[in-house]
């Protein structure tokens, strides 16, 4: 095998990132330049290409803010304002994080409970399982505004309605994986437990729960990403109450493109950190069992 630089993973990743940034700057020049030319022509002013190129990265409310503009906005809204201020992105991220985590925990518990029921009760399996799958073919995020309105009418505002949506999105991967995982115990082990005359409860806590753990963790990574999506989308109809989703909405209402991009980048960062944390927990817990490769 040749080990030239072009086969190294980091080289490919680095060149992709550089490529994206270059394309980003070029696209910003083109899109903002066009916008600039349109405004200048409307004002009946003369313009030259050098003038447009020099101003394309500085206009307020650009069509596509260049990376350094987004970075400046991020810096401004993260480090330059007090954390409890409504203009601080940290404040909004915190709101989103709360409902994401609450929804994720609720969804994981619900998912595990449903899976345990399905594994232990044949009637539950044949009646519920098709609907668990069908529930995901419904674009549930469309119901987000309703859930928020309905729970708001019941005087439940704040984190809980958003968490319900996150919960709905995150229970499904957990249920599917746990049904598979709880059934994945080695047949030999199952038979051994049976010869010991183990009860169903003992069988669950001493065998099934452990054989399901690798499945559980890989589904939790999917679930927490889904919970974040649910939280962000649930914040759209609540309007000004705060959260990354409401930053997106207000940014799009007032044409504050830099604000949109900053919120988007923050959501991306939050998502990858959350998935990373779950992955870390997975590695720690599974390696205690000597299952380091999972």
């Amino acid at each position: 095998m040749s080990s030239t630089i072009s086969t190294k993973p980091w080289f490919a990743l680095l060149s992709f990132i550089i490529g994206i940034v270059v394309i980003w700057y070029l696209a910003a020049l083109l899109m903002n330049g066009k916008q600039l030319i349109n405004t200048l022509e409307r004002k009946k002013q003369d313009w030259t290409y050098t003038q447009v190129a020099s101003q394309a990265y500085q206009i307020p409310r650009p069509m596509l803010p260049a990376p350094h503009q987004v970075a400046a906005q991020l810096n401004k809204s993260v480090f330059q304002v007090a954390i409890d201020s409504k203009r601080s992105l940290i404040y909004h991220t915190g709101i989103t994080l709360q409902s994401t985590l609450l929804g994720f925990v609720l969804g994981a518990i619900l998912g595990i409970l449903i899976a345990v029921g399905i594994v232990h009760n044949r009637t539950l399996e044949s009646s519920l399982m098709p609907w668990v799958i069908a529930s995901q073919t419904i674009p549930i995020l469309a119901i987000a505004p309703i859930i928020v309105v309905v729970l708001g009418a019941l005087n439940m505002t704040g984190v809980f309605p958003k968490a319900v949506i996150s919960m709905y999105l995150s229970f499904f991967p957990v249920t599917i994986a746990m049904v598979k995982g709880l059934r994945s115990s080695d047949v030999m082990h199952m038979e051994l437990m049976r010869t010991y005359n183990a009860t169903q409860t003992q069988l669950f806590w001493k065998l099934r729960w452990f054989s399901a753990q690798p499945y559980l963790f890989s589904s939790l990574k999917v679930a927490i990403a889904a919970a974040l999506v649910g939280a962000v989308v649930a914040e759209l109809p609540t309007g000004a109450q705060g959260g990354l989703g409401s930053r997106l909405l207000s940014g799009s209402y007032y044409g504050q493109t830099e604000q949109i991009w900053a919120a988007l980048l923050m959501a991306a960062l939050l998502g990858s950190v959350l998935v990373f944390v779950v992955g870390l927990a997975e590695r720690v817990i599974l390696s205690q069992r000597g299952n380091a490769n999972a």
Partner: protein
Amino acid sequence: MRKSMLNMLAFLVFSLQFLLAFNLTDGSYLQSPSYLFLLVAALISAIRLMTEMTAYVDAKPNAGSGLKAVVPSIFAMMLVMLWQSLVLGFAVSPVLLPSIKSIVISFVNNLPLLWADFQQTYLKAVLAGYVLGCSSGFIVAQLASKSLFLRNGLLPLGNFMSAIPIVGIAPIMVMWFGFDWQSKAAVIVVMTFFPMFINTLAGLQSVDHLHQDLLHTYGASSNQRFVKCQFFYALPFVFNALKLNSTLALIGAIVAEFFGTPIVGMGFRISTEVGRMNMDMVWATILVAALAGSLSYGLLALLEKRLLFWHPSVR
């Protein structure tokens, strides 16, 4: 004999309550709580029916799909009955939760409007974005399966993208591509590209080495290898992505419409009718979305069954 009598009785109680649920007057449980006994009895009957049916179906080794669908449909009917009778019986405000009956009525009454929304959101935005996103994901995966450089660069990017809420790009796309369906299609393209890419690539790489060696000894060209071997290994993975994307696409379109549309479209309908507290209509729109989502999923599953009849997961 006694058992079948009991089952008969359960069936009767359940159907009686089911019919009654649609003819209750508002607040009848508040006036005469004794009606609640019938509801509880109907629930117990439904559970009994499901248990019996499950045992019956399990005892038949090669039960048809029609027979297998009986238990889930009893479950669905139980939910419908519970929803309808609780909402009517306790006179729940229609703003909180409209009854099933009123949702169906407003669905039927507003068919032309809902059809126009469906056309705008599904037939234009979803289909265009779905086809573009899935096919480009497939093509790029095909290229990446041949190039280590592309794989190394794109796979981490794909994993990163799967962790972030991509629907967030909706306001940007609306700004770039205007209020009409093109902006929604653009959101869908971005949302569907990476699942398709990752799944297809995994499928293309799952090729059995023995098969590949065999084709190599036959002197097959790389195109022949793809058409005769790799493609079939990838198909189950491709179908997984197609099914996943069919729901994602609908979600993307509806959410993108929250950020601005011409005055038609399912997302637009939901957000305006919520504003007017006209919940019947909102739920009717969701009914349309649910039907569209599950029908497209079902069609894809059917197609998968037809094309993958040889695959162990289908047999």
